């Protein structure tokens, strides 16, 4: 039996572990914190705009389970908010236990509070990863899903310091990139000359701290909008945002809240004393990041060079997914790259040809397009998501965007790829 080690338990790592288990591998998933899903614990938005197409493609490819989990934990389905249509919002307080259970049922060994800090390379192959405590985990193929946010030094240099985000680096230690440890040079998104990374685009408020009238709105519609007084409109904040799909004037002029179990604020950060001047928010408190008054986590400082099968260039058996695989924003993007990386790790271990998804699929085009843009020297100045900004525009122009489930299933079937991610390979 082949053994695959996945490092990092966010949506990318959890999906990679699941795909590798479904393909027949023995899988160990190592996560540095006390919970899975990483930034997915402060997320919740899926199926909006082109993410609907990507989710349905993943389902048709046989990798639908993470999306079924999100669907089953959804608090709101098919809602719209500025610039976004047919969005679903999953409940961040329900989705993690569901995903953890699914992984355990699939036979994945999930080890929490296990931070990988070292790697062993033997004859050009990664042969094991070493945890902080000195445990060695051996395997045939490895998937680096350690993300690109933190360590704290990056938040200090390119953000406003550690704001106590969900990563909780001071307590659990910073992520350590496997790609970096094997000596492959990583890339960083560059917002302007010499200024790297991008700030997370949203935070969360505690429900209990908001006025019942606001909550009633949120419960009913999933969304609540308040116009900001002119002194609070800071259009320039949008430029630094990682989530360019929300870098629209609406999000600068209004406070937009979404109901994701907690209350998601669609602004990178907002000083609490200013927020509290709005009616209904007099008692508001941040729960993520804890210092949401000051800033947010800085990400995209450690992107791996990789091919379109998600194999890290310069390595033989190290794959990557999620933010590690590109300036990719969002859980849907993490899940679809995770599925492919996990599946390909098993293919590699079994000596099979690696799977590249064709450009007739949104997922395949998304992964390949980023590499094309890298070659053109543009990729690191933008961010990519199925849900908006430059890539959603491309999806529409290429005719890849559709919400017709049957058309998507037919598209995958015509390519002969139906169910490929759910097939056992050994």
């Amino acid at each position, binding site marked *: 039996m082949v053994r695959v080690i996945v490092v990092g338990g966010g949506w990318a790592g959890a999906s990679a572990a699941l795909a590798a288990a479904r393909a027949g591998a023995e899988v*160990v998933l190592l996560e540095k914190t006390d919970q899975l899903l990483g930034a997915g614990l402060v997320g919740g938005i899926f199926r909006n705009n082109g993410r609907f197409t990507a989710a349905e493609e993943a389902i048709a490819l046989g990798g639908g389970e993470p999306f079924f989990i999100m669907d089953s934990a959804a608090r709101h389905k098919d809602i719209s908010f500025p610039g976004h249509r047919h969005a679903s919002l999953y409940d961040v307080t329900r989705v993690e236990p569901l995903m953890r259970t699914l992984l355990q049922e699939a036979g994945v060994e999930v080890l929490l509070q296990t*931070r*990988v*800090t*070292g*790697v*062993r*390379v*033997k*004859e050009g192959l990664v*042969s094991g990863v*070493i945890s*902080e*405590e*000195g*445990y*060695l*985990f*051996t395997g045939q193929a490895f998937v680096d899903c350690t993300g690109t946010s*933190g*360590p*704290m*030094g*990056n938040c*200090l*240099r390119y953000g406003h*310091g*550690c704001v106590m985000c969900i990563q909780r*680096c*001071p307590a*659990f*230690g*910073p992520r*350590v*990139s496997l790609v*970096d*440890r*094997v*000596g492959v040079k*990583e890339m*960083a998104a560059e917002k302007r000359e*010499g200024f*790297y*990374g991008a700030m997370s685009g949203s935070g969360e408020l505690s429900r209990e701290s908001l006025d019942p009238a606001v909550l009633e709105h949120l419960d009913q519609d999933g969304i609540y909008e308040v116009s900001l007084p002119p002194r609070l409109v800071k259009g320039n904040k949008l430029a630094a945002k990682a989530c360019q799909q929300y870098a629209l004037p609406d999000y600068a002029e209004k406070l937009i809240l979404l109901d994701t179990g907690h209350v998601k604020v669609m602004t990178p950060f907002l000083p609490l004393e200013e927020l509290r001047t709005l009616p209904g928010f007099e008692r508001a408190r941040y729960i993520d990041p804890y210092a949401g008054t000051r800033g947010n986590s800085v990400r995209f*400082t*450690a992107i791996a060079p990789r091919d379109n099968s998600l194999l890290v260039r310069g390595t033989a058996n190290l794959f990557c997914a999620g933010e590690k695989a590109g300036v990719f924003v969002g859980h849907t993007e993490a899940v679809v790259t995770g599925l492919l990386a996990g599946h390909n790790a098993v293919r590699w271990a079994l000596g099979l040809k690696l799977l590249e998804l064709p450009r007739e699929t949104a997922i395949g085009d998304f992964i390949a397009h980023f590499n094309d843009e890298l070659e053109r020297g543009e990729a690191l100045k933008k961010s990519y998501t199925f849900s908006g900004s430059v890539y959603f525009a491309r999806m529409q122009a290429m005719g890849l965007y559709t919400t017709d489930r049957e058309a998507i299933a037919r598209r995958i079937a015509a390519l002969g790829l139906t169910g490929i991610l759910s097939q056992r390979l050994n």
Partner: protein
Amino acid sequence: MTLFYGNDYCVDAGTNQCPCHLAETGECPSCSILRGEEVCRCGWAGECVYQRYLLRPLSPGRDNRLQLVRVSGYENINERAYLLRLTISDELSHELRRPGSYVFIKPVSAPEFFFTPISVMEVENGAIWLAVEMVGPKTRVLRYPGREVLVKGPYRNGLMGLRAAESLTYGQALLLAKGIAQAPALHLGQYLLRRGNDVTALLWPGTVGAVFIANRLRELGAAVRLLEKSPDHGAREMAAEIAAGSYDLVASFGPDRQHQTVADILSRLDRRAAYVTTNNAVLTCGEGICGSCLVPAASGRKVRTCKHQLDARELWGAGERLGLSEIGLQLRD
């Protein structure tokens, strides 16, 4: 085979002495940003060094380790070695409770270059015991130190593999100590015993010609065996003990040759115990500046061993030079 450890860190990171001069010269062992890289790629789980630097570039303890202290006790071991008890500040004694701690010491009247690094043997509240072997002028002038001496401290990197040593609880530990290195062995032994570990110590008189920690270790609850000088420098006895026991941690206190031998034994016996060794580098300034402590680690890079805490396996080339594998790593299958 190449091992890339992410576990090395600066022993002073996050302490009162951090950031130090190396932060300003762009050579911080912990922080890649302070080393001039564009992004942070540290693995240090603790207070961010870069943040410390931004908030307080001059750390309060950076250039302030000096104390004038009273010599409050003296015991002769033999004609070659002696013990000193020094009355120091409570704060300093608290810092020196960490295993691997040492201080620089010199007579008050001697010039600056008489400062010599001496391992802490035992700590009381407000006092420490040091064992000194007379190997040259600096240690000779301390034999009759007068009523007061100058002490600089705390310095922390006397042992390699500190993380393993500090985190072991309710385990089995073996101390292999020779000569003057018995002093730091007693310090670590005491630390391990306090944490519920079983401690076995094999002691050799070494060049000092005396075993001087046996009674104290027994008092504290360790199992102690005294051994004689042998042509193989104790290799056979060490191997027999490691083979017979099931140790979670093996600590070697002695010359480099002994560290290499123990690394070899652990590997040949396929023992996955954590490995701790004394840092035998020449320590002159203790601040990462003078360069006397630079040592090439197995992976080829040079490290400042007065600051840089790294895996004893990397330092002793286990897995590389000896053709060994994963000493101290526990295989998860």
